[in-house]
């Protein structure tokens, strides 16, 4: 494709969106000044967001396209598979990244030593590069490469929290992540062995011929387990709670909102885009195990969240539970179910990023997020508490929040399949969310302020502003949920390969 005209040039946008953070990361390290680092990162993140917004609009208008890296046709070279699903997930990553970065400087200044701040921004950008790269790529092995970029950057980010438990959390995350990555590598290798190609579209074409072989079934098992480890699919989630708890606030907000989400997307791509619905859900009847794991995750993790004594840990367990809803939607393998899963990727990302950012406010003012240290904090930090209330309502699924929209779509998809007992279980699980949110509300509002909190004040605007934007979005997309639902439906149709 030539770059003669402006419209043609927009075909390069996805490539630029990956290259901008990739090139800014080394620049940040070279300049070695935390203010310059912040400025460059922020500019990079927002420009990437703009490019991806444009890409999403183009894919909605004209459908997707294939971008050939190095000018080599698939399956000889690596290509990008630009479509609505990928653009939508990239929009989540870049949007959350940009907003979280806007909030970063004060939080980073408080939590990260001066001599490591540029490294922090660099690792943040690298994590973003990896997530964007593995979303957009149309090559199975390339997924692994960018997965490792984002993983290594995430381990680094987690270890940068000021507590010593951060190091063990990062180490366990690294070991589990490396096992997950290696499993995916084995799965891709077995697939490649039977088909001779790494390109996803080409794989999808050539796999049905060999789908009955035991080698392909083994490869499927490895890809699913590997991706499951990385996306913290219950009961393979053990690395997640500590990693999110001890990471610096900015990193918690970004990783929790995007890291596991992109892995879910990768799993969707492999299951629906490569192996195909027929193979995964008819031949191997994956629906039931996924539904069981999803529901198990919702109940086990939400229950665990109730008993946490640390606010960030509570949110982390809630994340594992919310991933359960996504997996439950996925297990249906219908347009409605997949749309619910994709929609919840987006909606949960907004809510969780906002909540972790709000937890960052508390950490900024109090220096701790343990519930025991936060008694009566509600009266001291009213704005933060209001924002947390909005996020909490979203997690429960109160109407007018994004959480309600995704639950609504999920429940209607379940009802479509006449799975009424699952509908009941999914609805009942909201009570658990009520319980863990109530736990925080009770500590923050009902109890008398602890003497230690006497001089605590609300955070400055530069911290609560971006969080407020995030929470406003969660209401905007909750009230006007039709738009995001339509995009998610379109994305689900593309993944399942059915016409509108």
């Amino acid at each position, binding site marked *: 494709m030539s770059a003669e005209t402006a419209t043609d040039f927009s075909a390069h946008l996805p490539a630029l969106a990956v290259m901008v953070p990739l090139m800014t990361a080394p620049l940040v390290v070279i300049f070695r000044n935390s203010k310059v680092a912040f400025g460059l990162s922020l500019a990079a993140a927002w420009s990437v967001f703009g490019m991806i917004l444009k890409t999403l609009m183009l894919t909605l208008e004209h459908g997707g396209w294939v971008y050939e*890296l190095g000018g*080599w046709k698939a399956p*000889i070279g690596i290509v990008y598979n630009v479509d609505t699903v990928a653009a939508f997930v990239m929009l989540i990553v870049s949007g959350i990244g940009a907003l979280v970065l806007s909030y970063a400087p004060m939080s980073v200044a408080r939590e990260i030593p001066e001599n490591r701040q540029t490294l922090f921004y660099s690792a943040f950008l*690298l994590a973003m590069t990896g997530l964007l790269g593995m979303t957009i790529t149309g090559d199975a092995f*390339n997924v692994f490469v960018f997965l*490792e970029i984002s993983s290594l*950057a995430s381990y680094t980010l987690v270890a940068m929290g000021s507590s*010593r438990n951060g190091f063990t959390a990062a180490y366990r995350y690294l070991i589990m992540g490396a096992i997950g990555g290696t499993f995916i590598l*084995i799965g891709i290798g077995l697939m490649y*062995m039977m088909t001779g190609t790494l390109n996803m579209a080409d794989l999808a074409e050539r796999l049905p011929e060999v789908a009955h072989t035991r080698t392909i079934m083994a490869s499927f098992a490895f890809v699913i387990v590997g991706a499951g480890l990385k996306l913290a699919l219950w009961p393979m989630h053990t690395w997640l709670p500590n990693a999110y708890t001890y990471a610096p606030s900015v990193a918690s907000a970004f990783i929790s909102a995007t890291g596991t989400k992109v892995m879910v997307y990768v799993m969707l791509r492999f299951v629906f885009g490569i192996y195909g619905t027929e193979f995964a859900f008819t031949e191997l009847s994956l629906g039931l195990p996924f539904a069981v794991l999803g529901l198990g995750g919702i109940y086990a993790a939400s229950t665990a969240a109730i008993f946490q004594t640390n606010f960030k840990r509570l949110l982390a367990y809630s994340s594992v539970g919310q991933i359960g809803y996504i997996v439950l939607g996925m297990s249906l393998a219908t347009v409605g179910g997949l749309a619910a899963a994709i929609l919840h990727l987006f909606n949960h990302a907004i809510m969780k990023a906002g909540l972790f950012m709000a937890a960052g406010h508390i950490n900024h003012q109090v220096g701790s997020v343990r519930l025991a240290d936060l008694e009566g904090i509600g009266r001291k930090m009213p704005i933060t508490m209001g924002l947390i209330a909005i996020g909490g309502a979203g997690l429960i699924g109160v109407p007018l929040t994004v959480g309600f929209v995704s639950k609504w779509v999920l429940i209607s998809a379940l009802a479509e399949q006449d799975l009424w007992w699952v509908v009941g279980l999914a609805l009942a699980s909201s009570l658990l969310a009520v319980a863990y949110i109530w736990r925080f509300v009770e500590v923050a509002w009902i109890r008398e302020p602890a003497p230690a909190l006497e001089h605590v004040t609300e955070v400055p605007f530069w911290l609560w502003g971006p969080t407020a934007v995030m929470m406003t979005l969660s209401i905007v997309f909750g009230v006007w949920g039709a738009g995001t639902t339509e995009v998610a439906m379109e994305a689900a149709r593309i993944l399942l390969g059915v016409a509108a």
Partner: protein
Amino acid sequence: MTYVDAFLLTLLVITAVSVAGMRNLFAAAVFFGIYSLLSAAWMTVLDSPDVAYTEAAVGAGISTVLMLATLGLTSDREKKDPILKPLPLFIVLATGMVLLYGTLDMPAFGDPMAPIHQHVAPHYLNDSPQEIGVPNIVTAVLASYRGYDTMGETTVVFTAAVGVLAMLIGRRQRPSEAS
């Protein structure tokens, strides 16, 4: 299957298993270096000089040096605990079973009719002289056909530097100060 193959493979398994059993971590790290060199030797036998070269430089070189350096900073003895643990053993055996199950339909070793030798790869072997003109096809694929992957790989290396610096830059903390 020649005697060289059989000899190398046997040695590989022996070194790997002895690493598992060793209590002395210095010895384990050095044995890992040997393991890495042996796999490099076998890669050469399998016609992959580039991979062998890299594995020898990285596995037996950098990785082993880093392990030894870490042991110098920590401790070189592993605490005694039971070698056989039921749950990990079960998980590992289950994983191994899935892999063995996978081998049942694999193309035979070295079969030129295997799918990977019939699709995509012939293009590299036949057309790269005209398209790229570099005799070492591994370099041609690495830097051009799959140059994007290699850019990602370079970024991974850079990420490792960022990570290690982020963790180890500046003066060390004493255990007494930290706890």
